[in-house]
């Protein structure tokens, strides 16, 4: 090559967006919810989030260093996806968790779920969800009672509700829940980042404006979950808002279910995925009376390869008649 010309295949210009940009955008979108969580739950919440982000990043570095990748190259190719995982793990636990739990959760998520499968984009399930479920199962013995946030309910009364249960099945009484409280997260128990729905929605709108996610799909998920809950409890529309505003549904719908790697690749596939997710979440919530968003997403993640295998785009100008025997779609 003369004149030091660069030789490569077309196209010669590229869009500005890179994987790193996308991940940084997701981090920015998570900041409002994280800040609100720290405001509500205090310095201990900050400690948990910081520990989980640090250990997630450290996990990626340690893994790649063991794999004998030069440090400079790791830093140059660092794509911030472990920061996203770390932030999500940090804000999806409550302040009743012991301080060391996010370290284990993050390391498990980044090393076992992501890096062992081949790094960003190769994981089968969402690392943040897997980390959360890992902590949920492993640290049950150490978890104390839910702590109330620093800010009380706007109505001045303490709302006693677990993070999720819409209906207390033992007594069959619908707890008194104020929609405004649920939206702001004031007076609500719950995980650090999932109480303030308004902050989460702001993050979601930011992502939609930056065209990182299509807001239609989280909305399908949230709406389907609400409607299924309404249907399960005998067409009681009063349950719709409490159901969609409780627990980690909005956090899961906007930030976890929309993860590129673990969603189908086609529009139709995505619609099927999110509808199934909504119904599954509501049914599991009803059946277990527990917070099931992460379990539902984890289960549906595993169906993605199946959806992608059968739902494919058809080429432009495709006609059904020309389908020959032995050739599917």
């Amino acid at each position, binding site marked *: *090559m*003369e*004149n*030091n*010309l*660069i*030789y*490569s*295949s*077309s*196209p*010669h*210009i*590229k*869009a*500005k*967006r*890179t*994987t790193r*940009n*996308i991940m940084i955008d997701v981090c920015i979108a998570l900041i409002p919810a994280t800040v609100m969580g720290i405001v509500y739950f205090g310095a201990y919440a900050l400690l948990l989030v910081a520990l989980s982000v640090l250990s997630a990043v450290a996990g990626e570095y340690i893994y790649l260093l063991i794999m004998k990748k030069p440090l400079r190259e790791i830093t140059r*190719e660092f*794509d911030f996806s472990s920061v996203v995982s770390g932030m999500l793990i940090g804000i999806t636990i409550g302040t009743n968790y012991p301080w060391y739990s996010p370290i284990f959760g993050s390391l498990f998520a980044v090393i076992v779920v992501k890096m062992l499968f*081949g*790094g*960003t*984009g*190769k994981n089968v399930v969402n690392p943040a969800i897997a980390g959360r479920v890992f902590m949920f199962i492993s640290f049950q013995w150490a978890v104390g009672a839910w702590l109330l946030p620093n800010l009380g309910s706007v109505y001045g009364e303490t709302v006693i509700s677990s993070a999720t249960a819409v209906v207390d099945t033992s007594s069959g009484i619908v707890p008194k829940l104020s929609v405004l409280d649920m939206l702001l997260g004031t007076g609500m128990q719950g995980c650090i980042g999932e109480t303030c729905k308004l902050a989460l929605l702001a993050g979601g709108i930011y992502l939609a404006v930056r065209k990182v996610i299509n807001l239609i799909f989280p909305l399908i998920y949230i709406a389907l979950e609400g409607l299924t809950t309404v249907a399960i409890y005998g067409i009681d529309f009063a349950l719709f808002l409490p159901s969609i505003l409780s627990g980690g549904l909005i956090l899961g719908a906007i930030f976890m279910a929309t993860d*590129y*790697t*673990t*969603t*189908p*690749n*086609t*529009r139709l596939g995505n619609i099927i995925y999110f509808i199934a997710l909504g119904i599954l979440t509501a049914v599991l919530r009803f059946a277990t009376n527990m917070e099931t968003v992460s379990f539902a997403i984890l289960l549906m993640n595993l169906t993605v390869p199946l959806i992608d295998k059968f739902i*494919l*785009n*058809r*080429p*432009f*100008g*495709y*006609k059904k008649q*020309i389908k020959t025997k032995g*050739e599917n779609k």
Partner: protein
Amino acid sequence: MSIFKPKRFPFGNRIHGTKLSKKSPTETIPAPEKVYISVSQHIGAPAIPVVNIGDRVKKGTLIAEASGAISANVYSSVSGTVSDIRDIVNGLNQRQKHIIIDNDFTGEEEFLPPMPDFEPQSIVERIRLAGIVGLGGAGFPTAAKLTPKTHLDTLIINGAECEPYLTCDYRLMIERTQEIYKGIKYVARALKVANIVIGIEINKPLAIKAFSEFSDLKVVALKKQYPMGSEKHLIYVCTGRKVPVGKMPFDVGCCVQNIKTVLAVFDAIENNRPLTETHITVSGHGIKNQKNLCAPIGTPFSSLIEYCGGKTENAKKIVAGGPMMGKALVSLNQFVRKTDSGLLCLTDTETSTDKPTNCINCGLCARKCPMRLMPMYIESFAMSGNFKEAERYGALNCVECGLCAYNCPARRALVQSISMAKAKIKEMKNGK
């Protein structure tokens, strides 16, 4: 006549590139001292040289003759002496036979015989004789395209010029409107069609205005959406017809011709001039003055760059063609061909040098693909050598527009893998 709206097409997207040379009028570059004319500037069999070393030729003298139905004549673009006929490895790393002519600067010109009549048959014959090929880039001999086996009812003129940077078609449309119009009428006459549609992108309002004055042309103002200049998509937005998978435009009764092609047809019929020059945009931030040039075929690319003030220091990539579909040059040992429409010098900030990373499955390539393929699957099958599966996912339908790789946040070379898969699949089919 009013301007028509195109049919909605929900794929493809806007591209950030700018048309730097939009306001610079077409200039004719003086003929260089030596021209290097390739004998295979078109799809099909290479032309056979009919001159010998030492022969004197004029501008417009036949120097290589078409060999078969899908081939095209080649004419000398300067007057002078044939100094050599040899194989040259050009900037695209292709070994091609070139006829080298020393310019004597007398400017003597040889013309084609006058047209006997303007019957469709003689128009097609003239286009074949003048060596006109599809000047949009593919280089398919136009005469073969004008003798379809099926009945055609629509002629579509492609004035989309959807590639960023390129502006030569746009300049021609506003500078030589009348000539292009006459050329269009000749092509329509040869095809015996009455319905003529011209598709022009909405970012060229002057060109749309110029052509909306003709009452027998239907002007479609295309959205600024790449790749509107692709044949199949142009047919769809202009007529609403979908070209079925694996079929050609003439199967839906359409024929698409490029602006430069119809201009060459006009020149061949009214001025009796064979195709000896082409219009080319020299652009990119890596060049001092961005210009639209009319260059004799065979002009070295280095002369074009020199004429435009030379390269800047940070020019890192030289591309023949547009930035989306053009080919990068390994050296400047490249000469203007009939089909060239762009010469870009891109700086390192314009062209991306990022290394590819893992696919994150964002699905952007599939969402943007104008052919509705799923590039990520085809790519992974191509990389693992599973070409059968790549074919099942429609690799052969790819038009190589480059949108998937343009949008890919992981910077994967999707087009490269898919075109490799296409070549391998074709090889497999021929081998059977």
